């Protein structure tokens, strides 16, 4: 499912290099690191791979592997700007053809998953290979509610995890991402999130995602959803704003992917009642702020939603798409302070989560619902483009 330009002809210097692949790994426990090295050794011929790590390494354990020291970073749950800059510096120094950047806690990735991500770049002419993780139904919810639908509708790509923490990248893709990251590191913001999918779309590079099975995703140190949502969503909104000239052009979406229906029927969580109550409480207190951002139709729908029974609570897909788009517009226009704006989005997101849990509990597979949400975002993209260009036209 490659989407754009093929990889260019590799230079003679890089072809002459012995190691074709640089694997960068974040700092981790020594036992996990040794497990990862075992997987890397099983996945690739020893002379073709180079591992860059922040861990201490005894070469006697894996004598065939070449391991170098990587500069320390603060990556705890996602790859940051500094990681991309360091990865490109190492790749250029070592003259490799591709980089496999593994986020924190990569021990659960199998050798075949590692091989698939690397081979996509080395052999299939893809510039950016992203993993498609198999997650439990109620995991990665910010990605399912906002990141995936928004990226899919605006940038016309079906990459399921736009903020994947493991990436296979060609050298030119690494260079591009390092250039984007350099702006943040030079502004003393090394921990800023980078959006590889958006960069690849802007550059016109080929990308695809690959099923890598189960992956234990590291969680942010700050377990509070308020902080995580503001951080991730704010970063994506800012990136979308910076790339407005690109995503407003009409693009054809790749054909839909066939995904297996989950036979698992997940029961409704006890959290649903609390989330719905949280939404109701916010509805009584934050109406004044929401009315600055949302059109009257959305407010009316939220009013109806606020009196719904928790067991039957559903956030309609079209309403959710419209809410996210309107918040994105308000983010761009600075209708209210951006911190306030993202804070006011949190109860609405929790309402979506409550609806999602109810829908999966009713027997609909989680992936099917997420695809329906993404389709609603796509259908409402003309509204988004229209309001982006003419913000004063407040469509109801």
């Amino acid at each position, binding site marked *: 499912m490659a989407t754009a330009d093929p990889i260019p002809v590799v230079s003679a210097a890089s072809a002459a290099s012995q190691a074709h692949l640089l694997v960068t790994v974040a700092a981790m426990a020594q036992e996990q690191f040794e497990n990862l090295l075992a997987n890397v050794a099983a996945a690739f011929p020893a002379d073709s791979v180079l591992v860059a790590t922040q861990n201490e390494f005894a070469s006697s354990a894996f004598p065939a592997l070449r391991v170098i020291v990587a500069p320390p970073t603060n990556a705890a749950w996602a790859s940051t700007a500094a990681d991309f800059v360091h990865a490109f510096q190492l790749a250029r120094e070592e003259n490799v053809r591709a980089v496999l950047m593994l986020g924190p806690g990569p021990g659960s990735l199998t050798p075949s998953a590692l091989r698939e991500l690397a081979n996509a770049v080395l052999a299939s002419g893809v510039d950016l290979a992203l993993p498609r993780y198999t997650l439990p139904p109620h995991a990665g919810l910010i990605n399912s509610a906002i990141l995936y639908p928004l990226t899919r509708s605006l940038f016309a790509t079906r990459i399921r995890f736009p903020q994947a923490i493991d990436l296979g990248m060609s050298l030119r893709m690494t260079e591009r991402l390092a250039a984007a990251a350099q702006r943040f590191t030079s502004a003393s913001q090394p921990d800023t999130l980078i959006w590889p999918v958006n960069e690849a779309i802007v550059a016109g590079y080929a990308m695809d995602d690959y099923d890598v099975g189960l992956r234990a995703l590291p969680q*942010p140190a700050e*377990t509070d959803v308020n902080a995580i949502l503001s951080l991730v969503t704010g970063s994506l909104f800012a990136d979308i704003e910076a790339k407005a000239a690109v995503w407003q052009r009409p693009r054809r979406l790749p054909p839909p992917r066939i995904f297996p229906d989950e036979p698992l029927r997940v029961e409704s969580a006890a959290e649903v009642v609390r989330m719905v109550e949280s939404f109701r409480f916010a509805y009584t207190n934050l109406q004044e702020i929401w009315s600055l951002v949302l059109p009257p139709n959305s407010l009316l729908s939220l009013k109806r939603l606020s009196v719904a029974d928790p067991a039957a609570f559903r956030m309609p897909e079209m309403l959710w798409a419209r809410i996210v788009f309107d918040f994105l517009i308000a983010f761009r226009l600075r209708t209210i302070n951006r911190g306030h704006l993202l804070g006011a989005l949190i109860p609405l997101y929790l309402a979506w989560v409550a609806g999602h849990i109810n829908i999966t509990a009713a027997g609909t597979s989680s992936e099917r619902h997420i695809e329906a949400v993404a389709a609603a975002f796509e259908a409402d993209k003309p509204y988004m483009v229209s309001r982006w260009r003419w913000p004063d036209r407040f469509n109801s």
Partner: protein
Amino acid sequence: MLNMLAVIFQENPYEVVPPAFADNTSIWHHMSAALNQSLYRVLSLFIAVLPGILAFFVALAVFSLIGMAISAILRRILIWFKFDDRMARSRGNVEWTPSSSPTDLAARVSFWICVLVGLIIGVAAFDTSYAAGAPLPIALLPYFTHAVGAILLLIAGNLIARFLARSVLIGAVNAQLQYARFLSLGVKWLVLVLTAAMVLDHLEVGGDIVELAFGILFGGIVLTLALAVGLGSRDLVSRSLESRVERSGERGAATHDSSASGQVETIRHF
């Protein structure tokens, strides 16, 4: 009794008795003289400060025109240099994204700098001419300069009050504090009362009375909040805090035994 009767039956009881002391000038004459003197003093002061006022407006108008010209030239130069594109490429801090383009921003800043310079020069000219007319003081004029500062204080205070009230409201709602609106209103009025006291103090209205009243009012609001939270809403606060602690504990674990079949289900936002 005989005297009383004599008074009652006298021919003209309202006949004016001529004063013991007689003056040729009437009270109207005195009033007229006082008004003339006052008018003369005001007109003299106005004539003394008129050049200053004219200089103020001329300086403001001239520098505004210069500002418009500089702004237009700067805008053309920056567009020619593709300044916006260069900034977009080199800008690392995406958190700082002004709603206007960098070119617009630079042009506006240059215009307003010129206006500010004109304002300063105009005020200096006015100040010189007013100093010349100082022998004829009018106590109201210094209030104009204070009033400008007071208005700026009032605007800033209102903006800060609104910002803080929203911050507290959103934070408290997301923290599920049941008294979110009450807290937000309390913060808003604290800042507004503080602003009002500062404005009155800046205008030198009220003197010590304002300070005293502000101290009592501010202290009263804080005490009321403390008593309300500490005594009246003790149960409410403890329930809110308990539920908050429980929630954060749940989020840390993020695991719920939710189904009848005992299936352990995890909610992970990322």
